[in-house]
């Protein structure tokens, strides 16, 4: 008997089932199909300005910095200012995201390069798929538009998120993922990011910049 069959047989013997019971199969199939929501905390359940305020407060509590701009056209200047104010070099790596590409980068003196990171980039910008107010979390999906390596290798990660994509809870974002990629379909990687990288492994002292970005800067585009 293969290891697979043996393990399944052991599980079935232990549970006293055969694996062919119509009712059990139905219950499982239905749960996978319907994906019922559980309990959703009230914290993020607000709309408009109020939801955005919860998102900002939670993101800042996770030690990210947040700034707001009123249109996509203002993003490059805002990022240039952020880099300058932290004495960081005027370089920026990004993927092929069309929203990012359409922004007027030429108005700044930033040196822009495109593609995934091989470890040599100090600064990167990505566009979030969405955000979650409940915990100030950003939801990133992998792909050529926003390569996953940009989320982790650069020292300073800047994430642009559109205010209309900031949801109250994770479940709302999962529904958008299903709508975009098909039910049961997923991009290779979905990253939830809540604050910059950190470790408490030495004497329980919180230190930022363990292996991932030392800084996480969020630019919210109000639209």
């Amino acid at each position: 008997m293969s290891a697979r069959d043996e393990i399944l047989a052991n599980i079935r013997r232990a549970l006293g089932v055969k694996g062919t019971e119509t009712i059990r199969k139905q219950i499982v199939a239905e749960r996978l199909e319907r994906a019922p929501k559980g309990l959703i905390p009230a914290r993020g359940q607000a709309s408009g300005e109020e939801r955005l305020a919860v998102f900002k407060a939670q993101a800042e509590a996770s030690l990210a910095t947040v700034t707001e701009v009123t249109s996509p056209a203002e993003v490059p200047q805002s990022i240039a200012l952020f880099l300058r104010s932290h004495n960081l070099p005027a370089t920026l790596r990004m993927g092929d995201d069309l929203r990012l590409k359409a922004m007027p980068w030429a108005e700044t003196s930033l040196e822009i390069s495109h593609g995934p990171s091989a470890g040599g980039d100090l600064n990167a910008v990505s566009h979030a798929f969405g955000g979650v107010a409940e915990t100030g979390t950003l939801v990133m999906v992998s792909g050529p538009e926003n390569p996953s390596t940009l989320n982790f290798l650069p020292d300073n990660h800047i994430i642009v998120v559109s205010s209309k994509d900031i949801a109250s809870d994770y479940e709302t974002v999962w529904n958008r993922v299903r709508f975009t990629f098909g039910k049961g379909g997923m991009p290779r990687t979905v990253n939830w990011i809540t604050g910059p990288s950190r470790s408490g492994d030495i004497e329980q002292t919180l230190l930022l910049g363990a292996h991932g970005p030392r800084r996480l800067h969020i630019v919210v585009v109000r639209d």
Partner: protein
Amino acid sequence: MNVHTTSPQFKRNAARALADTQLQKALGNVKQGFIDKRAKAAAKLPEFEALRDSARDIKNHTLENLDLYLEAYEAKVTASGGHVHFARNAEDARDIILSLCREAGAKTVTKGKSMIAEEIEINDHLEKNGITPVETDLGEYIIQLRHELPSHIIAPAVHLNATQVEQDFRRVHKNLDPNRDLSQPVQLLSEARSVLRERFLAADVGITGANFLVAETGTSVIVTNEGNGDLTQILPKTHIVLASIEKLVPTLEDVSQILRVLARSATGQDMSVYTTFSTGPRRASDADGPENYHVVLIDNGRSAMLGSDFQEMLRCIRCGACMNHCPVYHAVGGHAYGWVYPGPMGAVLTPALIGVDKAGHLPNATTFCGRCESVCPVRIPLPKLMRHWREREFERHLAPATFRSGLAFWSFFAKRPALYRLATRAAMVTLGFAGRHRGRFKWLPLAKGWTKYRDFPAPEGETFQARWKRERSRRPA
């Protein structure tokens, strides 16, 4: 199963730990930090207790239908271009992992933090076969340098102080300036960051664990704060996920429920920094990510726990809250437990995985104060399960002869209420009289196990039952 354990020597381990001043200093950090942070995070979320119920129910439902969810999960992984390998035990798992590494032509393998990887002792196996495993979680990296086991399931190096880490770094990172300043923890972190960054970029295979496996989508989920798990899995050509079979949950909604209690229970964060959902290998259009995606599903004793008194232990999501709140863990630390899993969850899981004959001391090393159960995010009745192990141990005649005869002596009286009352009354009167001046005993016959470490308080001369009767009769019915 042939495992390296010192669990049978728990008593000796514990005595050593109590005398270890470095360890005692480090353990102070556990008591202060974790408890406070969890309490604050729980207080901030009014729905926290109800979410614990929800998490418990999801895990229960999944375990009752584990066969079907495993099949659904496997089909989804395969459909997304990944491969699922089943391993009955540690040996199976080691063989599968080694052959996958060889297929990938691996010289070095980076590793995210994984308790199942510790359980199957994969590092030693890879090393023996000429492949270098590199732990990348800061705590795991430190203990790998020291050839130690983790002493905590989420803070593996919690037993160490910064000066010890500094010594290890100076010993191992020989190509760096010997006069460099490493007096601050942040300097240690940044040294580890730069050393490990090269390892990440050079690795041929990345091995991670999984906090959850999602049946709906064939997704593996890892939760980290450092980002090391992500660099481990997106940079090399091959990503291998190691997971025990009880990591399954049905849907993305279900995993979102449980994630709401995981970090809060573990570190007191509302959410960990990086929660990563991985499904299959890189897609045709992807610019990065692994070309091969393998999942090794490991049983190693879990299926035998299903349908038994210990099924509830399979709900465990490895947050560490039970050990953070355990007075025994606070006193002796994680290594005294002698194997991979310490604290209350280890006291229940270890006998199930390596045998109660080897690990019987662990469920006995408890005060049954109940703090572990009171903070468990999936409400595992840990004290009850430890009690079950004591019963097994007794049934199998594994308890020492003095313990058994003492218990037989006690049960002789306990089964004869009149005699019991008489005997206890006599004992209490005698002890109460003998200890009436000092109020405590430094020494008592047959009680050396107690009086060696602390005084025995003198009773007041009356039994509990007698006092109960008296107080009750005073109160109007």
